[in-house]
């Protein structure tokens, strides 16, 4: 542990020697307060021309605040910002734009039924004789797209193109407006692995063409892959800046969290007992009447974690919704503790001993405008001891909330804070706390660590394993192979609505799983291919 400060000093020393380096953006000793809360304390970030500079920190560490200061959305209480050596006062985003700073937001700001070009020119439409001149704009978009290898069709409609493509439109938008400094806010959060590779290439191309990039992220792998330097912040404080090639993921994780972090969760062998969940010949349709789950069979026993590995859209969502009563079952049966729960209402399923960490925490998991305390009571508000004869005792809710907040390390100002105000990681911890605290026999965890940092992921994984060790059944759905491999005792691979194979993490490889997920049924044949042609399948 003593080695961190030394390491930082060593790396900082490297830069003190080279004063001549030209910085395009310097944020020096930035301080930002919200009331009594200090979101940024003495943070320094210096961006060199032509580099990819990662800004690393846990959820809620103050990364977004710092970038909003740079983008003119917040005014700092202390420190100064220099752009190309000159001190600047960025009081609103227009000034940031004029200084050539562009932001690619995590949640895209696009009009769904407009074309790519229309979205890009929105707000500064070029006109010819008073009529919007889309043709010239489209040509300019085309040219930019080719220059940076973005491969975007200027006439495509946003809702028709993939998420990765929509992100490129966001990038084009900043380039079209003459951005020289691009801020990427968690750009890979909603991308598929293939799209992430493409984005990496695009970012490298942008830098090669002379742009400078700040990459906000908490994914260590990305940082190691593409960044030149990393500035780490922890709980609002600037920890330091290190050169990527001189560090490693575990050092970065320690800097970020402030303690040693384990990447693979420790877990002993499983001792599975009676069956808790038994799914037999399940068929589920989506809202259009297309069969998304086809004759699926699966069981989960007490004391084991079954991971469902698969590519997004292969029936995982429909499967979970069918189990939890949120979606109608076309045929087949679902039993929990030997009781038939097929077609029961969500509350009845919940009361049969099911906990559900939903895939989309904003849509299903939380009532964002409710205080976090209400959210923690979302499954139990109607039951004793919280309610008696339809009257809620809010003191009991807050009591419960305080206990869950403490047990699950939810960082919040208290039960009265709106759920919306919490960072993503803490929102997720609150949901997991709510579900695990009810001690369900079956815990369904759908993408439980999506968008979370290593510290939170470690915490959540250990909680899932703890449930298992307490003799409960856990069904984990994940798109991340690492997660499935690390946490599960058995892995069921889903493809096109069917479980194509069930394997154990000890006897399989990521390559084999990858092939199974792609629909190559029959493990034996796959393994043969796997051994010989490993390189072709690993990126």
């Amino acid at each position, binding site marked *: 542990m003593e080695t961190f400060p030394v390491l930082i000093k060593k790396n900082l020393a490297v830069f003190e020697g080279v004063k001549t380096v030209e910085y395009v953006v310097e944020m020096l000793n930035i301080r930002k307060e919200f009331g009594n809360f200090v979101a940024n304390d003495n943070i320094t970030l210096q961006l060199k021309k032509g580099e990819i500079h990662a800004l690393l920190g846990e959820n809620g560490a103050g990364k977004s605040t710092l970038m909003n200061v740079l983008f003119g959305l917040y005014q700092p209480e202390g420190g100064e910002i220099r752009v190309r050596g000159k001190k600047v006062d960025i009081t609103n985003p227009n000034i940031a734009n004029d200084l050539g700073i562009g932001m690619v937001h995590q949640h895209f700001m696009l009009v769904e039924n407009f074309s790519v070009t229309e979205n890009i020119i929105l707000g500064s439409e070029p006109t010819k004789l008073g009529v919007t001149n889309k043709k010239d704009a489209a040509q300019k978009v085309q040219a930019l797209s080719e220059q940076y290898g973005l491969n975007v069709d200027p006439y495509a409609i946003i809702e028709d193109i993939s998420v990765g493509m929509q992100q490129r439109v966001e990038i084009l938008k900043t380039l079209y407006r003459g951005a020289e400094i691009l801020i990427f806010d968690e750009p890979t959060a909603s991308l598929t692995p293939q799209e992430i590779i493409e984005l990496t290439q695009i970012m490298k191309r942008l830098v090669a063409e002379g742009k400078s990039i700040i990459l906000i992220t908490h994914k260590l792998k990305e940082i190691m892959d593409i960044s030149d330097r990393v500035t780490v912040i922890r709980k609002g404080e600037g920890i330091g800046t290190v050169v990527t090639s001189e560090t490693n993921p575990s050092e970065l994780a320690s800097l970020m969290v402030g303690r040693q972090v384990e990447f693979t969760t420790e877990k002993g062998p499983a001792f599975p007992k009676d069956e808790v969940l038994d799914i037999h010949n399940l068929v589920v349709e989506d809202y259009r009447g297309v069969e998304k789950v086809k004759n699926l069979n699966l069981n989960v026993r007490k004391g084991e974690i079954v991971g469902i590995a698969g590519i997004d859209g292969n029936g995982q969502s429909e499967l979970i919704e069918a189990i*939890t009563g*949120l979606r109608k079952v076309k045929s087949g049966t679902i039993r929990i503790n030997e009781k038939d729960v097929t077609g029961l*209402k*969500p*509350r*009845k399923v*919940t009361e049969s001993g099911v906990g*559900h960490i*939903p895939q989309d925490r904003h*849509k*299903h*998991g*939380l*009532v*964002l*405008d*409710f205080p976090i305390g*209400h959210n923690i009571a*979302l*499954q139990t*508000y*109607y039951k004793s001891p919280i*309610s008696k004869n*339809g*009257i*809620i005792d*809010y003191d009991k809710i807050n009591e419960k909330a305080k206990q869950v907040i403490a047990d699950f390390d939810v960082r919040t100002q208290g039960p009265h804070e709106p759920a919306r105000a919490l960072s993503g990681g803490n929102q997720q911890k609150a949901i997991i706390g709510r579900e695990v605290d009810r001690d369900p026999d079956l815990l369904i965890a759908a993408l439980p660590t999506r968008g979370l940092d290593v510290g939170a992921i470690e915490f959540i994984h250990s909680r899932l394993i703890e449930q298992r060790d307490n003799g409960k059944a856990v069904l984990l759905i994940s798109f991340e192979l690492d997660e499935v491999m690390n946490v599960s005792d058995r892995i069921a691979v889903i493809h096109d609505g069917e479980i194509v194979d069930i394997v154990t993490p000890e006897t399989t490889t990521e390559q084999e799983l990858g092939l199974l997920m792609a629909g190559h049924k029959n493990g034996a044949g796959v393994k043969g291919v796997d051994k010989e042609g490993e390189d072709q399948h690993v990126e």
Partner: protein
Amino acid sequence: MSNRATNILVPLISVILGLLVGAIIMLVSGYNPIRGYTALWNGIFGDLYTIGETLRQITPYLLAGLAVAFAFRSGLFNIGVEGQLIVGWFAAAYVGVAVELPKIIHLPLAILAAAVAGALWGFVPGLLKAKFRVHEVIVTIMMNYIALHVTNALIKTVSGGGDRTELIFTSASLRSEFLQNLTEFSRLHYGILLALVMVGVMWLILEKTTLGFELKAVGFNQNASEYAGMNVNKNIILAMVISGAFAGMAGAMEALGTFEYVSSKGGFTGIGFDGIAVALLGMNTPIGVIFGATLFGSLKYGALNMPNEAQIPMEIVEIVIAVIIFFVASGYVIRLFLLRAANKKKEVK
């Protein structure tokens, strides 16, 4: 600037600005604003009689405001308060006229009839929304017209071809000798107390019951509510039924208190529509509705005195009143200006 200071300053500045702009309007139309506002003041607080009448005017606004606010809190826009009020008015008057019973039974029965009629009128759009996802705004607007003309037809039948019913039996009346004596024989009736009790009822439902918890959850996020095992459709229907019951009771105030009869109407009463503004001014909270209803009721009633005492034509009066309410509703804008001013000050420092 502290939060508390802005909370007091904002409504104050809003009202002052509204009065100023209203004064300018009177000035350019050639009337004396000081006389105009004196007349308005006297029309609201002039003597015990006007105070009584002002309170009477506030009563239906309270209930109409509650009706709109309650639906809003459950994520529904009940534009049909007007129609629910009209059927409530008729139902209460009908029960008041049709039978004579001991007061202890008759009066509650008449009020209950109004609440049930309003609830029924709210149930239909609630059901259509829950079952078929038909937007409640469309249905409630249409239900308003149906209410207006159906009650007119019923009044004709009940009164044997006339355009108003008999006076209700005193056993169904909300009128109060005590309150009338207190206020120099205004029409102030016990309804104001009932309306205030209903403010408490709404607060209790929303803040103390599991039903209120569910209604608010559904209002904010239907997906999460469904995930949490709440019956979203049931809550939508219940919200509209309860909202309609409040609106129906607003009608009972007119039927059993102010007029003691129901007459056929050429158009809407406007109370239901003003209830939307009352609810929004009160930020959809029960306590806020008291504030909104007081403002609306006072201005509406006080304004009637402006043509008499200051000879300002009713058209100008209505513009002035609208301007004042407009400025109060624009409190957000004023808040923004105050914030900017505060920020500038900080920068100068």
